[in-house]
């Protein structure tokens, strides 16, 4: 039997989807950008507070590399009332080209800048 117009339409859309998936995988596989590259960015630290009286610092963790990273330990340090405080959080998995938003807590508003560093990560 001949294909009707609906089958042609579905075939056209299907071909587009399959070519899109295969094409993307092929191109991204052949143009690998190397290992994971984790970057952090504090977003609007002064505007965040915690309901229990503490202070939350929101930040974004990005993976700008070509492969995923797991167990990413992110640590933020800041001076709070003259004492240095550190706060740590672990991101289970961060795929290539993706980002996640975190909030790290302190006992009060930081006196100055918040320093954020990536302690380490594993390659899954």
């Amino acid at each position, binding site marked *: 039997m001949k294909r*009707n117009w609906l089958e042609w339409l579905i075939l056209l*859309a299907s071909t587009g989807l399959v070519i899109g*998936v295969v094409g993307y995988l092929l191109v991204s*596989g052949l143009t690998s950008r190397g290992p994971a590259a984790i970057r952090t960015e504090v977003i609007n630290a002064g505007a965040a507070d915690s309901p229990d009286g503490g202070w939350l610092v929101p930040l974004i963790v990005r993976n700008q590399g070509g492969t995923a990273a797991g167990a990413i330990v992110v640590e933020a340090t800041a001076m709070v009332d003259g004492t240095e405080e550190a706060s740590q959080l672990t991101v289970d998995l961060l*795929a290539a080209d*993706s980002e996640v938003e975190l909030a790290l807590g302190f006992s009060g508003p930081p006196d100055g800048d918040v320093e954020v560093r990536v302690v380490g990560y594993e390659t899954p």
Partner: protein
Amino acid sequence: MARQPSAGGQGSESKRGAARQDRPASQDGGDAHPISETIRDHVRAAVGGLLVGLPLLWTMEMWEHGSTLPPLKMLVLFGLAFVIVVGFNALSGFRRERTWLELLLDAVQGLGLSVAVAASMLFILGRLEPELGLQTLVGRVALLTIPVAFGTALAATVLSEPEEGSEADPVGPIGRLFVAAGGALYFALNVAPTDEVRVLGSEADTPLLVAAVAGSLAISLAIAYLVDTPSGSTGDRSGGGPLTHPAGETVAAYAVALLVAAILLVSFGLNDGLGLRALVGHVVMLGTLASFGSAAARLMLGGGSDQQEKAGS
């Protein structure tokens, strides 16, 4: 899928040609598939895809592997699934007037539908958030398309009604191994991404591995004998080659199952850092499931052929 590709097996190409010659050219323009039937076929295929794919669509390890698998490994799995789906369609379809080009187009159509079904379900589950990045989005859809595509292929072959006057082609030994590979891939894919494979593969000692091999071969042999009985399917046993004997088919099907298990282990990166002994343990333990899948698929092929025979008589 919308249309059933022709049955394959030995000598099917000549039958396709004969079927095409028998069809008058004047009818080519006026016998298009009814729209209602097209819709019904695609709904059936989508439901079949969900039926088979949903458990894996709900599996966290699959989402994670969709994020972490290298694109080229993903492409290999995607391609392997496509080849097996084409083979499934070629071997177990009812309609006989498909050319190989039409068979490929049908498979692309089924795969495209599977991509849409997998993407829709992942979106509904909240697993396709934009901040995940394009690589993860495409990776998850590509990986989860594989089980859905098996479901759409099965729906097109097992759930659909046979056409009037259709007959079953006997499936040759190579075709049966192809089906065995499909069953092995589907069953093993269900657990390959989980931690259980690592635990079982690492902890199994030699006597347990020997028992696993013996058990796998016993199940496979039982299926081969079951299909070979007179009341069983139309499996083609007349060729006289080593693969037409149940013992030969058993060994070959088990080898295929082990190969599928090894491919999955490498694809999911589970072989990284493993010594040879541990690697063999992983392959054998995953192979138990793969061999059962291959046996189940061969058994189902027998059942499907029976239905076709009944429909044709």
